[in-house]
């Protein structure tokens, strides 16, 4: 090998290492922004605290007055951390749905998985129906999970059919959303006004429902699912190269897709069960990650998780700051922010990555 061809060979390696370095820096920046956003989120609310107050209360809780300790530790911190957990779960769920369905518009919200989870939870709230066996305290999340899973399986089955295009799946998603909304309306028709009010507030998606035990479950689900995705990073990235290509690399395409979809249903149903429907985080988060960091899942996955968490954390700050003294349900904020991107994704054209 001549010295010059040796030089050409090592340039590729060096450029790749530089690319990896840039990505790690981006991930670190996202993580830093997330910490800042978290502290601001905790400090924002009807009773305003400075960032320093928050940090002091978190680091040395025994030295601050009881009222502040209760507000920050028992009310604000669970909500603010739940925003991170839910943002992460929804964003990763959306990102992996886009990966396995090869569809830029896929997300738990747009394909009806969130609506299915809402309906499942409503069955419990209205009639006390339990679709899966389990502790009474967790009938609502279990039901949400069961219907979300069924919805995911319907999407999977249709996607397997020959000739199922990107558009087919989106139309199926619309049909599923309509179906679950209609079923939800029927349920609401037959229950008391009080229960209807509870259901409507609950479908709006609000982080104020967060408590430490719910947060623990959400975190447990994320901690259980994310490592599985991380381990399969290479195979999942290959799926985006097309089925034939992935299969030619030895990836068991159908098995990986089904397994991922079931995990996605789990990730997407937990937030819905605990904080209600929060739309578009699962759509926007992955797209931001993809634009910043590309689609190598080793970087895409953490970037998706971090950007989703950051979006919901910022939305939470906005939901508390728009009208003084009022906390708007965060689902409304994310929908207002996410809708323009959804339109953009539908209307844009040309050859590009999505």
């Amino acid at each position, binding site marked *: 090998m001549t010295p010059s061809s040796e030089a050409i*060979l090592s340039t*590729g*390696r060096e450029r790749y290492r530089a690319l990896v370095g840039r990505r790690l820096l981006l991930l670190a920046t996202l993580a830093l922004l997330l910490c800042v956003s978290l502290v601001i989120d905790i400090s924002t609310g009807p009773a305003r605290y400075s960032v320093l107050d928050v940090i002091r209360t978190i680091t040395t809780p025994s030295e601050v007055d009881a009222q502040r300790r209760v507000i920050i530790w028992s009310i604000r911190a669970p909500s603010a951390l739940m925003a991170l957990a839910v943002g992460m779960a929804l964003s990763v769920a959306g990102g992996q749905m886009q990966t396995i369905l090869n569809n830029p518009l896929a997300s738990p919200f747009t394909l009806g998985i969130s609506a299915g989870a809402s309906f499942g939870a409503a069955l419990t709230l209205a009639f006390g129906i339990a679709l899966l066996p389990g502790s009474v305290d967790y009938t609502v999340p279990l039901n949400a999970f069961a219907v979300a899973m069924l919805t995911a399986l319907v999407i999977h089955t249709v996607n397997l059919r020959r000739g199922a295009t990107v558009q087919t799946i989106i139309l199926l998603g619309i049909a599923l959303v309509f179906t679950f909304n209609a079923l939800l309306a029927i349920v609401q028709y037959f229950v008391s006004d009080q229960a209807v009010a509870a259901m409507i507030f609950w479908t709006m998606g609000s982080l104020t429902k967060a408590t430490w035990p719910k947060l623990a479950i959400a975190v447990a689900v994320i901690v259980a699912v994310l490592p599985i995705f991380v381990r399969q990073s290479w195979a999942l990235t290959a799926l985006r190269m097309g089925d*034939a290509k992935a299969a*030619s690399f030895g990836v068991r395409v159908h098995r990986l897709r089904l397994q991922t979809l079931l995990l996605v249903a789990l990730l997407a149903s937990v937030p819905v069960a605990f904080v209600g429907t929060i739309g578009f985080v699962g759509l926007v988060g992955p797209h931001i990650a993809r634009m910043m960091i*590309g689609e190598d899942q080793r970087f895409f996955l953490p970037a998706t998780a971090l950007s989703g968490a950051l979006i919901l954390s910022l939305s939470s700050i906005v939901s508390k700051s728009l009208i003084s003294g009022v906390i708007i349900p965060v689902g409304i904020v994310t929908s207002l922010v996410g809708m323009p991107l959804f339109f953009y994704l539908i209307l844009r054209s040309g050859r590009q990555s999505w």
Partner: protein
Amino acid sequence: MVAIALEGLGAAYGNKHVLSDITTPAFNGGEIVAVIGPNAAGKSTLFRRIAGIIGGPGRIALSGVRDGSRSVAYMPQDDTATVALTVYESILLAAKQGGAWRVGAGDLARVDKTIADLQIGDISFRYLYELSGGQRQLVGIAHALARDPDVLLMDEPTSALDLYRQMEVLGLIRRLAEERAMVVFIALHDLNHALHFADKALLVSGGTVQRCGTCDEVITDAMLRDVYNVVARIERCSRGQRHVIVDGVFVREHAPA
């Protein structure tokens, strides 16, 4: 050395049998086998069957492989990814499948070597969706080569390449087949390429093997008439190389009813 023989391979999509009883003698490392046949003959299905992507009856007798899990690499025909990966990353991805999670210096060296072999260093940090059809095809070849296989299946690898690149790529495949002692199955529509670059020819038509042997044995005037429905001559040029010259379509005379 690696050797591969096909024994009674079949494949079906639903109830429709696309391949049946594909049987060949053993092909040895270093050999290039041109898989030829008209459109919809079952060539791509045969590749998918050998690659293990689809199942079916029959057996692939493979011996002398170095690493059983990645002995066969398949390059599909259409390659239209919208994924946000650079060429370099996509080749790394191909090399890493089924291997360790971490990227080591050896992995990067393998990617660099593949890029140098195919002379695609100038596009190695472009995104896949920015590439032209021909560039995509070169990258597709890079994906297959990066897996360092014993058996390489290439479905029309040169269909989108200009004349220079066709010669380059086929020459490279010829050289690598010998250097790495690979068996290369290559689906080709241009029979002159088969005559120039392949050692053996496997004629597939109607989902089964019509003929298998050296290119001279398989590619004949009579075969072109019977299987391809063209009137053609195989003639030697001034350099003694055999060429297919197609004069026109072959019109079968039907007896009046």
